[in-house]
């Protein structure tokens, strides 16, 4: 039994029961299927993470984000006057994460593509876009670039879901998705 040495010295020649063999084959094929599903989704699925990323100094990223905000600011919001920025459809948009905010607020058009650039100014943060539920990890010193295409209008929150310090739970940002007609 399991607590004593195998009864047969040459245990590796014991015959395999059919049931075990069948299960091993099924489990193995299931692994292959899951592998295939991931690959298949790269060709046909619409939700794949880009692998585009660059090393970047936080100051440089901040400069780019500020330049964009200055150029395309449409209004301010919140008690602290966070700029709402509406870059043209199809363009590059920047959002930075720092203790304890995602800056600035973005306004995007529905069904238009944007190249979204994300990076952190200090520690790691989590970019959790709700309610659609997309979750990314944001590192300092790395710029992640992904193409997004908002598929529903509305008000979205960006919640920080990587612990980043005492006010981590107050770290939220916002993205508006509006109809392209107006």
């Amino acid at each position, binding site marked *: *039994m399991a*607590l004593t040495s195998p009864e047969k010295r040459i245990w590796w020649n014991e015959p395999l029961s059919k*049931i075990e063999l069948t299960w091993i084959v099924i*489990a193995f094929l299931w692994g292959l299927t899951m592998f295939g599903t991931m690959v298949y989704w790269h060709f046909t699925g*619409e939700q794949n993470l880009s692998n585009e990323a660059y090393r970047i100094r936080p100051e440089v990223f901040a400069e780019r984000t500020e330049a964009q905000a200055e150029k395309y600011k449409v209004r301010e919001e919140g008690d602290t006057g966070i700029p709402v920025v509406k870059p043209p459809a199809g363009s590059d948009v920047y959002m930075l994460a720092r203790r304890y905010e995602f800056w600035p607020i973005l306004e995007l058009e529905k069904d238009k593509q944007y190249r979204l650039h994300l990076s952190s100014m200090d520690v790691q943060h989590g970019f959790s876009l*709700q309610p659609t539920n997309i979750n990314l990890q944001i590192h300092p010193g790395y710029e992640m670039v992904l*193409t997004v295409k908002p598929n529903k209008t509305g008000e979205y929150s960006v919640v920080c879901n990587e612990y980043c310090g005492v006010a981590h739970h107050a770290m939220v940002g916002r993205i508006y998705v509006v109809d392209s007609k107006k």
Partner: protein
Amino acid sequence: MAKDFKFRTCPETGLKVHSQADALIKANAVVAVVFLAIGGLFGLLVALTRWPAVHMLDAELFYLALTAHGADVLVFWIIFFEVAVLYFASAILLNARIVLPKIAWLGFILMLVGALMANVAVLQGESSVMFTSYVPMKAAPHFYLGLILFAVGALLAVGIFFGTILTAKKEKTYEGSLPLVTFGALTAAIIAVYTILSGAIILVPTFLWSLDLIPHIDSLTYKLIWWGFGHSSQQINVATHVSIWYATAALLLGAKPLSEKVSRGAFLLYILFLQLASAHHLLVEPGVSSSWKIFNTSYALYLAVLGSLIHGLSVPGAIEAAQRKRGFNKGVFEWLRKAPWGNPAFSSMFLSLVLFGFLGGISGVTMGNEQINLIIHNTIYVPGHFHATVVAGTTLAFMGITYLVVPLIFQREIVMKGLARWQPYLFGLGAAGISLFMMGAGTIGIARRHWDITFSDAPLTVDVPGTAFMMMGLNGVFAIMATIGGAIYVVVVVASILFGAKRDEAACKANPVVTAGGGEAVASYGAEEEHPNLSGTIVLVTLLFVTFVLYYYVNWKFLSEVWPLS
């Protein structure tokens, strides 16, 4: 033998027990239980804070408690207990002496000092960085130093385990191949070497960085190596609790593995493939390529998953076969109905098996998919998943074997048997509840490690669905149930050790804990021509498989609804 070593003979199993093995197992197990008690209490505080209607701790204390909870239960409770299991699987099962007991004790002391040091650092409040301590967030230097000392101590223990096995072989204290349980422990120990080295490679520079001796640690590199430690250690847990499943089934029911070859092969898959799977912690990080992620999560992870699926058939299969030989042969499930459900060692083991497979295994593989991880990463789904693996799976299995370790090693009767009988059900149900409700809340996007889902301090409002509040409340209710189950365990174990009646030879005869023939195998196939009837096990694994496939594709459906991104 060079010296006279003190041995006693176990009246129930006939095994020769080295006094040093006895003492080391006792010390490590007792300290483990103490850390479970402390860490579990922090877990309750955390869960009560995340229950929106209760919201118990303030933010700073919450993050402190969460850091302490993760470190005390995941690292200290689990690893102290595993060291006890290693000594059991080597010295005791092989009738052997512990080599270099002094070094083993040194390891124990290092682990204890390290664990205390890390706890002090966390309680001082300057190290609320979570047990993952992702850089560039910085903890106090003695937080890292504590973890390093703990790791060095654990490495010594692993070394003693290898030494003990080699000496046993040399001194011919056993014949033939290693018993399966020792083999499983050996796989755990081999993975532990890799794990602890990864930990050292990343924690030593981080410690130096915390002293300002190194200017910078790259956050992505840190994560890659840290999870080489953090994830592989989960594989140690799995290898250990699977060994315990086999051991419990053997001790209580005389179950013998269906095939030594298959069970050992499944353990080997763990060694060969799980290390690489630390990749599934980096699925949504910048700058990690898809082909690397797919290779590491599927080629590597799925072959390790294959190992677990194999055990998922062979463990219940061995039990079914043994029970049928004992005469519980009616229908599909008489063997299971007539199992010793009133014995906490058995009920813990079987609940651990079922909950680990159905809740922990399925959720883990699903969220470990490259794309599906996008909708799960860092949501509270993640703690939901690992409370199914490491609490309902590993912790419950460890609790179960304690009900055998106390009579066999501490040689004390279990006291408060009536309470003990209910303990696994309370704890198992509580753990299953917190797992499920955290997974549920995570599926709708609730963040992990988060103090306030009302966002009352935030400059912008966030719309959180009402169901999330309900699920976090239910999580709190089940957390209380799990805590009661955990507290009963601690009380019963401590009280039995202190006040339980001593088990002398007569007591062992009158009231054996090891069933039937001193643990002789009641069944022996694989070696036999006749194939055992395993219809109940087939029903169980079919159910597991169907649940798995359905749940897996439901999550692809969820994924397909989020914003297109590329």
